[in-house]
């Protein structure tokens, strides 16, 4: 009798564990990909204004204190979003010259929502109407110090790109790309962006990621 009760408890625990695993797996889902249709490309060539923004790709952080900030002990680093955005725009100007996109140089703060991607509501609040491309990379935490460093477990960097219609916050296109960041220079981690912490080879891989995203957006034949 007692054994039977214990077995029931064990089964309940296993079920709870399985449920937790499913829930956690759900948390790690990527945002859905949305392919650009010919209509989407047509809208980009005639719509105005169109802006392109990138989200802050590096944060050095310590726990908050009452007084002035102390020396940071760790940093959160993502893909070089500014560089990827600019490479994407450069390619688009060459292959879709009729599209006029304003490159916003100031990085955005990423206020994350569903799928852990930035909340587009904040873009609407700033830019009001039109279309917006945004480029975001989930960050990974590193201890700050000198010298080169490989990311723990060598997790590839992911960059998410979207085209949003600000009137109704519809996502017209969404895609992502991953690349191997390689070793980073921890000593070079300062604001405003992560680009100068990457090696040339790492930046080349990031550039190829931007090209992949552009090819995915424009589709075959452009």
């Amino acid at each position, binding site marked *: 009798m007692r054994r039977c009760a214990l077995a029931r408890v064990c089964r309940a625990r296993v079920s709870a564990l399985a449920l937790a695993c499913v829930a956690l797996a759900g948390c790690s889902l990527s945002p859905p990909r949305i392919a650009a249709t010919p209509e989407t490309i047509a809208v980009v060539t005639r719509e105005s204004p169109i802006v392109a923004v990138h989200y*802050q790709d590096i944060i050095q*952080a310590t726990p*908050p204190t*009452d*007084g002035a*900030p102390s020396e*940071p002990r760790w940093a959160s680093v993502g893909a070089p979003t500014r560089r990827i955005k600019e490479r994407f725009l450069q390619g688009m100007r060459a292959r879709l010259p009729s599209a006029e996109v304003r490159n916003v140089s100031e990085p955005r703060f990423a*206020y994350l929502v569903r799928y852990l991607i930035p909340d587009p509501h904040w873009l609407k609040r700033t*830019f009001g109407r039109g279309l917006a491309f945004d480029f975001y990379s989930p960050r990974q935490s590193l201890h700050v110090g000198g010298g080169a460093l490989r990311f723990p477990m060598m997790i590839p960097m992911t960059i998410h790109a979207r085209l949003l219609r600000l009137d109704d916050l519809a996502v017209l296109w969404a895609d992502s790309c991953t690349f191997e960041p390689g070793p980073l220079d921890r000593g070079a981690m300062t*604001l405003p962006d992560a680009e100068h912490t990457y090696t040339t080879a790492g930046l080349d891989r990031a550039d190829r990621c931007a090209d992949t995203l552009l090819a995915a957006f424009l589709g075959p034949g452009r």
Partner: protein
Amino acid sequence: MMTRGVGLALALVVLQGCAMLELRESSRASLNAGEAVRLDKEGWLALPGVRVAVAASNERLIAVTIGPALLVPLPIFPLPPSVVETRRDASSMWIDVALDPEGEGFVFDPSRVRLRLGEDGDLRAVRMIGPAEFAHLVSRRQSGRLCGYDPRRGSVVGPVAITQLSCVSLEFDVVPPAADTTFALSIEGLVNGGVPVVVPTLAFSKSHRWLFNAAP
């Protein structure tokens, strides 16, 4: 059997950890009764095209209780606050100003912010940090601060463009006053497309908040 039971109970206590209840006091901003605008529950002041919130960094822990958190948390044992308080006494006063603008036209000049504090008169900020990210909910709740971390060590107090929800920390060269000391903050220097935005003077007075924490 008895020993095993006691051991299991102790292990559960260790694994489950403790619960801690803190009572903190600080100065909280409010508006005069005659003002046409109101602060909402989260402390935001809604003005034309922009929301403004402020927080002073003079929070102090005044009481704390601790206890087991098995099935029901029971923080019933009082502790001296000095045992728990990790913050050091600050030599200067920091005030966070969070701004949530609509559009790209806002410029904020913190050199035109004045802290009115008793006999010290009108004080100007001597250093600023930001614009930084607006701190996330957990951080705001824990620290009572509005600004997220910004690694820049502070800069000369001067105008900055505010194009998104962001936060500026201002340092005033005065020892943070006790929570029962009243003081006021006047924010001038907020402009939208060249047009000044009038921010009513914010009066700070004593406020309390409870904070419930797990203490592993």
